[in-house]
């Protein structure tokens, strides 16, 4: 029971930390933590190639329409633990590429 209680505590604390870290609004209205990192300098095409090919063959931008890519990248953000910034850049690249 002690292990279970600790696990729940850890889970709650982690979510609170991440949730409270949001303190900045980006132009799209989505909240983002202010931080500088090398990930932010990567282009959408690079992020698309790096993140998608880690699990499967990359699928060409021509495969889906703009609105379909929007839903797909949202789904993959959930499935592949992408950050919001990575998702936005990849989506913009895919939508511009067809």
């Amino acid at each position, binding site marked *: 029971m002690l292990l279970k209680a600790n696990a729940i505590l850890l889970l709650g604390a982690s979510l609170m930390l991440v949730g409270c870290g*949001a303190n900045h609004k980006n132009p799209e209205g989505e909240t983002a933590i202010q931080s500088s990192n090398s990930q932010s300098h990567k282009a959408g095409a690079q992020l698309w190639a790096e993140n998608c090919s880690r699990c499967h063959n990359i699928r060409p931008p021509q495969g889906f329409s703009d609105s379909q890519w929007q839903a797909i990248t949202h789904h993959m953000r959930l499935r592949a633990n992408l950050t919001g910034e990575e998702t936005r850049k990849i989506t913009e690249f895919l939508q511009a590429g067809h």
Partner: protein
Amino acid sequence: MNRANVCLASALMLISAATAAAQNPPTTQITNEQFQQLLQQQEQMRREIQQLKAERANAPATQPAAPTTAPAAEVATQEDIDDLNQQLRKLRDQVHTALPGMEHFLILGDASVTFVNQQGSPSSFAVGFSPLFLWEPTDRLLFEAAVDVGINTDFNNNSSTSVDLTIADASYIVNDYLILGGGLFVVPFGQYHNHFDPPWINKLPDDPLVFSDGGLSPTSQVGIFGRGAAPVGASKITYDAYVTNGPNLIISDPARAGSLNYSDFTDLNNGKAVGGRLGFLPMPSMEFGYSLQWAQVAPNNFGGRNVGAFLQAVDFNWVQEVRPIGGVITARAEWVWNDVGRATYDPSGKLGFGPITFGNYRQGGYGLLSYRPALATNEILRKLEFVFRYDSLWIPLSAPGGDHEQRYAFGIDYWLTPSAVLKVAYEIDDKKLGPDQNAFFVQFGIGL
């Protein structure tokens, strides 16, 4: 002639001359040279008119109708045509999304057809179809649903079709680094079920033992979750945390007592399963992960005591283009440990197989290595991928269904498209107690 007649004739001539002079303008004198020049000019003009007529006759076939007053600079270029095509595509998308219920709604999924010839069993075809429904009402909200449609054959060779709901969840983007959600979702325990098991991603036709039916890994569970990622310099950390109903302990099946049932989504007790996964990507092509889940798994009335299960897993995934060998190397490995609390099954002996008590520590995993000569000059060679996998499952020999099983699988994939693959594989099976079940597979898998 008399004088009067001469006067009359003269008068008539004068009148005629005067009348003629009044009707005809004075004529210009033209030389023969000027006349010849006029003839040449006329002939030249005739030729030009003929030429213009010919050009006009050919104009509709070679040039679009353009105003004769349009300047040459307004002639459409290839760039203009591309722009028009792009606008047409966007208009088509807008028309598509304007249909009722179609706003960011999408059906994806995968399908497979498999031929299996396994030692000790009749050869058989199998089929699977797994549509995935995505609906994104807003930029932050996503609904997902997925079903597995398939054909099952039981131990008596009776077949049936099945439709299993595997995903039905809603998620909300809180910020760039956190998503919250709930429903029936694929539990982030290891990487296999979340990332690698669709037939167009899995490099071999079957699942590793530890992630297959009867394995040690949870699949889909009902509950709530939070997940996300955060960059740390050039690396990245991912996290998942969840609370679910958890797996159930099988207590009355003589062949499986002591195993965990991951397919029953209801809870048999008030204790919930708590778990999560922490991932670390030192570089974009490499990921390490550690997963855990703690759950109370026995029914409330099972011997008057709680039985807990502690599940752990480590995973590794690396995909790298290696130019000296002209291709892409994929290396994946996962290992799972299940520690289920000690319990006595069929304590009264009424079920006919007890009382039985055993230490219930199980483990298993797999290691996969593949090579795809993606940089080869030959197109056919570029589409091939050579795969090897070792996997094992260790169930206590004293437990019902206990065995130590190891498999060595060799496969060749041919990628027809990035999401369609034809696989051929042979698997060598080695069991400590049961009969070996070597198998030959041919599978076509496609992502839709």
